């Protein structure tokens, strides 16, 4: 767990310091571990809107803004904005891939346990409890949604939605209280 956090921290630091001068060593250092550990993390980049945005940033922006003092095949462009766009591309690439690698390598329960051992103990406890409650709450919300749809029409939409929400949240709290109580009893028995 700690090594994944350290790697993420290193990669995010590298994303912040990447520049035209140091890109030669920063990029391999930041993306090399991803190639070794989990190439699947690169799939986070295969999203149409993101690719279009990055393509426009690198290929389009230098043609429109800045002082167009250079040209390629007769098309003038701004070298200053080519550098700026490339840096943005590198930075976003490192950040997205690093965060994806982190979330692919870490299991939720492992994260909750680690948080409970740190200074964020209360948050760790809340998160661990949340994970334990999640399956039941998912089921409760599905049933509640069905009940909501069945009950619609008997009263006004807003009043019905409000009553349903109040009931749903109350039931969730009662379930959490019961679950927590049973857990405490179980721990006391042990």
């Amino acid at each position, binding site marked *: 767990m700690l090594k994944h956090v350290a790697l993420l921290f290193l990669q995010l630091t590298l994303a912040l310091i990447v520049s035209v001068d140091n890109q030669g060593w920063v990029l391999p250092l930041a993306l090399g571990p991803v190639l070794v550990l989990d190439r699947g993390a690169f799939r986070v980049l295969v999203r149409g809107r993101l690719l279009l945005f990055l393509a426009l940033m690198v290929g389009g*922006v230098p043609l429109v*803004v*800045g002082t167009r003092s250079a040209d390629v095949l007769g098309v003038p462009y701004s070298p200053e904005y080519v550098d700026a766009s490339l840096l943005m591309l590198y*930075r976003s690439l490192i950040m997205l891939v690093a*965060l994806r690698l982190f979330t692919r390598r870490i299991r939720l329960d492992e994260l909750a346990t680690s948080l409970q051992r740190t200074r964020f103990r209360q948050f760790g406890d809340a998160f661990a409890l949340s994970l334990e409650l999640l399956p039941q709450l998912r089921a409760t919300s599905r049933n509640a949604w069905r009940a909501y749809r069945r009950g619609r029409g008997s009263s006004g939409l807003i009043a019905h939605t409000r009553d349903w929400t109040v009931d749903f949240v109350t039931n969730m709290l009662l379930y959490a209280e019961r679950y927590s109580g049973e857990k405490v009893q179980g721990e006391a028995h042990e």
Partner: protein
Amino acid sequence: MEARRQTHYVAVFGTLWGLMEVTLGTALKGLRIPFTGLVMAACATVVILAGRRFARRRGSVVMMGGVAALIKVFSLGGFVIGPVWAIVFEGLLAEIVLTTFGLNRLSSMLTGVVLLGYTTVHPFVAQGVLYGSDIYTIYLEMLRKFAAVLHIADVDLVPVAGVYLACIAIAGSAAGLAGLRLGHDVDRNLRRKRLGERTPC
């Protein structure tokens, strides 16, 4: 005992917020419904304020945001950076408002307005973090270029911004009051149900 109770309130409202982001947020985005961010921020306001009625400790809203963000990070839809940061920032902003002013009508309305207002600028904040501050220079340059091409450089945008801010203020205040009311109603319902559980028929 009280600490445990506070923890489970944080867990329940954080999970509720996270589930809402995963289900409703993904559905609205998938259906390409406009102003999804504003709708989700209004829903988050309601959950935060209802939750604050129970989890009154300082930092509880930040923790709810943390739980919701982690649920969103590890959800089936994959890691989408924008909404995750939005959840974390929303939790932080709501905590600042509620810690400063306490939980009352005015602070609830203010929380709603702040969260909906933040949602408007969130894409720029998130892009600033992801791409660096150069992105703002590029946006400003592009804006100037297009304004010059379309001859709209001299158009007064103040009335448009004013109308938009008024809409945000109304919607945010309504969401804040709805959250406060929800917390109150759930509290009453909870007491009634607890009493019902304890009283044999």
